[in-house]
């Protein structure tokens, strides 16, 4: 049986671009023909579902029935890759819940591949989150994502302090998401389609659209750079269910 892969995207702080990163992941897997399903934990109304309605289900990850919906189906879902966009403030709580239900144990035994994309904000609080998360991700692939999409500058960070946090987690890998032009970003939001669909000049449902060639060019260029980061950390190999 193919080994399931679970990718958790989260942060304890809001507004750091978790859903944006999740969207780039779903586009990446779609472009590489990796069957993927997604869970949007912004219950009851999910932002992720607006962009990827075909593969996304909105769940309340704090409730047992919805936890069952995600984790009890890992082995028998068609899509072997499961991406979970964790609502702001719930990353530590979700990891704790995963430990409590024994999920981290099966990860340790190698029955499931587990990756955490921890999206960092520019504040010192984000560094404290790393320390908090570290306790749960010993057997996971742990990615610290600096998201520059909104031109965030990580000015509050002293590099030495960051390094000391970064080094607390063995094998942690840094990913940089570059800046995307504000107007391009906004237009994709308005279009409510995946980045790839926007680049292909299609609307929801695959209808022909008339987005600006310039904006599509910027989105394509940016997405290419994000995917280059995913390639660099060998995400395709991690998502390989063999």
């Amino acid at each position: 049986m193919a080994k399931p892969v679970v990718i958790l995207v989260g942060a304890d702080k809001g507004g750091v671009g978790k859903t944006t990163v999740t969207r780039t992941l779903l586009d990446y897997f779609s472009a590489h023909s990796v069957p993927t399903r997604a869970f949007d934990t912004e219950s009851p109304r999910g932002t992720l579902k607006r962009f990827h309605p075909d593969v996304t289900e909105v769940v309340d990850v704090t409730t047992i029935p919805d936890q069952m919906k995600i984790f009890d189906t890992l082995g028998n879902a068609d899509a072997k890759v499961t991406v979970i966009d964790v609502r702001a403030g719930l990353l530590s709580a979700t990891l704790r819940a995963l430990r409590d239900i024994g999920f981290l144990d099966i990860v340790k035994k190698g029955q499931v591949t587990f990756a955490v994309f921890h999206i960092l904000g520019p504040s010192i609080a984000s560094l404290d989150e790393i320390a908090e998360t570290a306790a749960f991700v010993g057997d996971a692939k742990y990615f610290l994502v600096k998201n520059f999409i909104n031109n965030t500058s990580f000015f509050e960070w002293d590099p030495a302090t960051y390094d000391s946090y970064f080094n607390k987690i063995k094998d942690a890998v840094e990913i940089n998401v570059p800046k995307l032009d504000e107007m391009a970003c906004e237009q994709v939001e308005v279009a409510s389609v995946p980045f790839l669909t926007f680049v292909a000049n299609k609307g929801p449902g695959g209808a022909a659209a008339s987005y600006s060639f310039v904006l599509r060019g910027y989105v394509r260029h940016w997405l290419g750079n994000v995917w280059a980061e995913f390639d660099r950390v060998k995400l395709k190999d991690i998502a390989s269910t063999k």
Partner: protein
Amino acid sequence: MMRRTPLYIVCSPRPRVGKTLVARLLVDFFLLEGRSVAAFDFAAEEPSLIDYLPNHTSRADIADITGQMALFDRLIAGDKTAKIVDLAPASFEPFFSVLRQIEFVDGARRRGIEPVTLFMADPGRASIQAYAGLQSRVPDMVLVPVYNEAVAGGRRSRAEFPLARAVSVPIYIPALIPLLHRHIEKPPFSFADFRSTPPGDIPLDTYMELHRWMRRAFVEFRELELRLLLHDVQDSLLRDDTSS
């Protein structure tokens, strides 16, 4: 086979090498051929293209994304209108940087538009480096050196402007005798209008001289258009061969 819509980018990283003159000639070349044409003017100094040909020219500024959309989305529109860009030295780097980032050349070709950069050759180091830079940064774009005989030493520096492909045969713009300058330098001025309705106050021999000069320049453009057409035909034959 459908004829491609021309898009000419007239450029140089240096001022006063005759970019605007070439852009003006190109606009009038298309007008005289009865083809629709739209020009885009980057220049900040007057007189610029928009002053000479206000009815066919819009101002362009790509300092922000709104300006980039206004220009590039118009350049790539499938409206069968020939487009001429008069690129000021200050906008040279940003223009080609955006063009490259948004993969403009590839997108334009897929829409039946052939972007051609007419590079005003001059012996200055900045020009030689910029030309080499364009050849390596945008290798899929047709890059044609233009030798303006009024720019001293331009033609002598041919070795510094190597041609990347057969279609890139250089263009020569003949020098205009000084007496004629005052007739064409005061805006607004259209070569096409001048040819169809010559002003009454111009001596016949002056008119004939200007006429000859225009014809020589237009022959250069016509030959370039034919080379591009031939290049397209060869490309399409090659495609047919590989697909059969």
